[in-house]
């Protein structure tokens, strides 16, 4: 048995439990808890003029009804604006329960607590809220041009306005460079809304111990430590009296990093007030209309380039739809603005965004977090340049690549973590070479023309991206070896199904030289680890992985020192293999790590045979020294933190071949290929799993998913019947190849892989459809009905530009 598991395709240890239905999700807990339901606004924009509960109070099983008026001081304030930014001059957040205005359909107004959810919903139905209607603001371009306001004190509905510019090397401004460029193009791009849509919605379950004055809260969250701090602060409780646990979480994808959700404050508050267990488990409709969405942007692009396709100047103006509130600041448009640059050296770059309020569900990061929009912009730009110049699309990209010998490469911007946008490592030309081999890029024209002879329309597309991963500020790891030889690993960030139990155990087993079966991993439980940031931004493996490795190294150092005493050897001559500490080259001179754990903790009391060895009359330590040496602690355990100087930058390239039906306009992905570089891989099987899931979400965003709001601000497709998340039948087989350029920034040389798969998909599919149809595709997602309409208008009116034929 090897204990060197780093880099091995170890099967996911959590799957047997989860797949067999033995997961422990939020709604599996608290079977006897009181249930919560909310009266949510059916209107997009209205003043609340009255709340009448007369018809509701007689319902048997009703326990309590709360409105904003009932809330205590700390809970009455607007929810926190989590990430302030100087450009966010008009940040606005919602109240836990609407105070006097509702600004989107789904905003919570009344909280109902009852003996079960059925009764709670009966009560909700009987509560009459009266409204005075205000004009709803829907649609980005309407919001910035129209007279109606989402927040009456936010002129033009503009919450934030930010310009970043990287001038040309000679100091010229981007717009001047473009004006003087040999060739220029100008166009508008449009990306629709989608959403995270985890299989498990949000949920909160709270237990108050009135005698101990302590609160335990379970939340389906991506950050239990920060939810804990928010609850303690809002409810005025001492932090040590509050513990928050993320149980098994059925997916997050970003929506559960937002916190505290109103329910995360209201449910514990009600549990304390009522001195009863209280639970709220979000249903699917609630998730659609009251959680968060993402993606929607309109981009105006101007680009100047030379005969070779080098981008001399790029000027992008973005309207970003932020929905009704900005609890997560302007992280999404900042990421779009900065990650738009991808693997390219752009001569000069100006990006300006307006973050715009609309009477729709708020926008917060969804897997990819603004990158799919940025990559869509840049990759469409590259395709258009290639088309204009009559060049191969991959050659235009290659002409602009940062070269392997140019790292670290400073893009001279400020990234989402407030730190410089400096790429640490990568090899983009090699990625592209691998991708072209994998998809058969150079052979495709022959395939395309053969298909055309049969009346079939085939197209190929390509997209490249760079993704800042592993953002700080920090994560920690705690590792304890107990006297039974078990290794207990904990970290504060949370898991939503990524496979942390497996990869963190691989790291610990490798670092400590123990069998993986001996290692257990706990995440997201503040009883075990109190300091953490959370799981988002493809950061868990980089941050907690390195922290756990560092903690293991501390434990190993201590183990070798104690073992050296016992074996009368030099620690430098010792090594741990398969749970045994031994002298290098002399396996017989050994001591089990379990025994080292016993010896690490001098005992007075023996409770089993192992413990006897550490009791005061059994040890033979020096009588001149204390049993626990100065500067040491009892126990074989260690804790450490990893805090990076800045993010590490993963990259990848995708290509797809699509077929469009000449008659029905159906769009089918025939092949999908991915080359991915996330530095050193802890577990290539899990990296592929992350890529597959990401591509599947990307296909959803490219061909199926959008949030359809009407002009009244009603979400028309708030169910899985009409919001078309793709089934497995819609997802092509995904071919992958890897490249490993280690990150120089962290001990393990790793980069994040969580979001990668989703990022370039819309750009790739748009390029492929454009190639098949010879019709410009500037708006995603695209449905067969949309493609039919594009064909129709390109045929009849010329309203849609057709690509010119390049031989």
């Amino acid at each position, binding site marked *: 048995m090897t204990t060197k598991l780093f880099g091995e395709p170890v099967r996911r240890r959590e799957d047997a439990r989860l797949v067999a239905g033995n997961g422990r999700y939020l709604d599996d807990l608290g079977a006897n808890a009181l249930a919560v339901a909310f009266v949510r606004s059916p209107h997009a924009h209205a003043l609340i003029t009255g709340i009448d509960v007369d018809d509701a109070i007689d319902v048997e099983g009703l326990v309590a009804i709360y409105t904003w008026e009932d809330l205590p001081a700390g809970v009455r304030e607007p929810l926190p604006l989590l990430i302030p930014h100087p450009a966010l001059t008009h940040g606005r957040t919602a109240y836990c329960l609407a105070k006097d205005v509702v600004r989107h359909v789904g905003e919570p107004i009344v909280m109902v607590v009852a003996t079960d*959810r*059925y009764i709670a*919903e*009966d009560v909700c*139905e009987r509560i009459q809220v009266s409204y005075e209607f205000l004009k709803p603001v829907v649609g980005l371009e309407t919001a910035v041009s129209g007279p109606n306001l989402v927040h009456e004190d936010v002129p033009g509905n503009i919450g934030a306005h930010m310009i970043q510019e990287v001038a040309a090397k000679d100091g010229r401004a981007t717009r001047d460079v473009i004006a003087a460029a040999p060739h220029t193009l100008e166009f508008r791009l449009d990306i629709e809304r989608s959403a995270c849509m985890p299989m498990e919605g949000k949920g909160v379950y709270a237990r108050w111990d009135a005698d101990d004055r302590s609160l335990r809260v379970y939340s389906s969250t991506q950050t239990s430590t920060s939810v804990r701090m928010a609850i303690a602060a809002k409810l005025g409780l001492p932090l040590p009296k509050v513990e928050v646990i993320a149980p098994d979480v059925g997916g997050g994808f970003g929506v559960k990093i937002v916190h505290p959700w109103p329910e995360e404050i209201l449910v514990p508050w009600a549990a304390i007030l009522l001195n009863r267990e209280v639970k709220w488990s979000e*249903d*699917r*409709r609630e998730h659609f209309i009251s959680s968060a969405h993402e993606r929607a942007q309109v981009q105006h692009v101007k680009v100047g380039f030379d005969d070779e396709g080098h981008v001399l100047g790029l000027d992008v103006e973005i309207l970003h739809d932020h929905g009704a509130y900005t609890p997560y600041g302007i992280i999404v448009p900042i990421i779009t603005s900065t990650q738009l640059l991808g693997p390219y050296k752009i001569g000069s770059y100006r990006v300006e965004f307006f973050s715009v309020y609309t009477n729709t569900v708020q926008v917060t990061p969804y897997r990819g977090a603004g990158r799919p929009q940025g990559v869509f912009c840049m990759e469409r730009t590259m395709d258009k340049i290639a088309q204009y110049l009559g060049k191969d699309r991959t050659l235009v990209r290659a002409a602009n690549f940062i070269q392997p010998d140019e790292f670290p490469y400073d893009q001279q911007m400020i990234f989402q973590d407030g730190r410089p946008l400096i790429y640490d490592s990568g090899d983009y030309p090699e990625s592209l070479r691998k991708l072209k081999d994998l998809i058969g890029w150079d052979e495709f024209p022959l395939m395309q023309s053969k298909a055309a002879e049969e009346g079939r329309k085939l197209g190929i597309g390509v997209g490249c991206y760079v993704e800042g991963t592993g953002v700080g500020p920090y994560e920690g790891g705690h590792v304890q070896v107990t006297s039974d030889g078990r290794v207990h690993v904990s970290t504060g960030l949370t898991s939503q199904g990524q496979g942390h139990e497996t990869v963190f155990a691989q790291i610990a087993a490798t670092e400590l030289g123990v069998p993986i079966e001996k290692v257990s991993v706990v995440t997201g439980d503040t009883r075990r680890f109190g300091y953490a940031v959370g799981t988002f931004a493809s950061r868990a493996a980089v941050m907690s992985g390195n922290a756990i490795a560092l903690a293991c190294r501390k434990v190993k150092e201590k183990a070798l020192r104690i073992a050296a005493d016992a074996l009368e050897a030099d620690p430098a001559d010792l090594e741990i293999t398969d749970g045994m500490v031994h002298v290098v080259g002399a396996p017989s001179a050994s001591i089990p790590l379990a025994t080292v754990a016993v010896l690490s903790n001098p005992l007075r009391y023996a409770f089993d045979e192992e413990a006897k060895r550490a009791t005061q009359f059994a040890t033979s330590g020096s009588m001149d020294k204390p049993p626990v040496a100065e500067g040491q602690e009892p126990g074989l355990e260690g804790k450490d933190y990893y805090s990076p100087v800045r993010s590490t930058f993963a990259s990848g390239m995708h290509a797809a071949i699509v077929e469009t039906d000449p*008659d*029905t*306009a*159906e769009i089918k992905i025939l092949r999908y290929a991915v080359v991915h570089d996330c530095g050193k891989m802890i577990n290539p099987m899990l990296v592929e799993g992350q890529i597959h899931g990401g591509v599947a979400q990307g296909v959803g965003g490219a061909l*199926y998913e959008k949030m*359809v709001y009407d002009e009244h601000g009603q979400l*028309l*497709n708030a*169910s899985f*019947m*009409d919001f*078309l998340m*793709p*089934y497995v*039948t*819609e997802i092509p087989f995904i071919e992958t190849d890897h490249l490993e350029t280690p990150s120089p920034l962290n001990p393990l040389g790793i980069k994040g892989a969580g979001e990668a798969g989703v990022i370039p998909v819309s750009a790739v599919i748009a390029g492929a459809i454009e190639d098949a149809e010879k019709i410009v595709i500037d708006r995603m997602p695209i*449905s*067969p*009905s949309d493609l*039919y*309409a594009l064909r*129709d208008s390109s045929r009849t009116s010329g309203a849609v530009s057709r690509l010119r034929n390049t031989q």
Partner: protein
Amino acid sequence: MKPPSFVYHAPATVAEAVEALAAAGADGKVLAGGQSLIPLMNMRLAAPGHLVDINHVAGLAEITAEPGGVRVGALARHAEVEASETAHAAQPLVREALRLVAHPAVRNRGTTVGSIVHADPAAEMPAVLALLDGSVRVRGPEGERDIPAGEFFVGPMESSLRTGELAVSVFFPSARGGTAILEVARRHGDYAMAGVAALVAPDHAKVACLSVGAVPVVVDVTEAEGDWKRAAELVQDQIDPEADIHATADYRRHLTGVLTERALKAAADA
């Protein structure tokens, strides 16, 4: 997404079921497979006061060959009908169409009769019944009657079933010609944006179209005399599709034309 309270009835015989339905009147609903009714109740779009669960009624799950066709009982699940050689031998279009109905998990629970009684104009089985001139056998307080498909579908989600009546079976006739069904859905198993079931017999040809009207739209295309492009135009003249978030009316009309031509060709070749 929890339903309001309702009275649950679990009759053991058709007579008891009819009695419970008659007593409940307009406030009663039949529960068979529940694949449409339960989501509607959970979303509180339907709130029947009485739910008459026929799953305990004996003798309703049978699939029986009868002269000129096959009779499918009210408790026969889509998956059972799909797998039935009896049904397939009598009318191969039934299996072909059932494979387009949602997904295996839904077909394991949902019933073919339930789908027809639900009368969704976007569903496959009402169109199949309409194309074949099948019928629905119902039992009510006044006894039993057979309703021809042409009179059964009266509007979206609306049939000519009277209050207190239970559909106990449907009859799919065999055909003297070839049949086929084709559709285009956004995702595999979704309700189709457009779909066409076709029948081509030696002396006549016709189609039934999904998702382009209030009920399955049956169009006789015999006069096209085997020119299926012409037949597609005849059909496009007869339909009045509506736009929704998945497809424009124009696209639905176009698709129906394409599918009419393809389905008639497939039926002629079958």
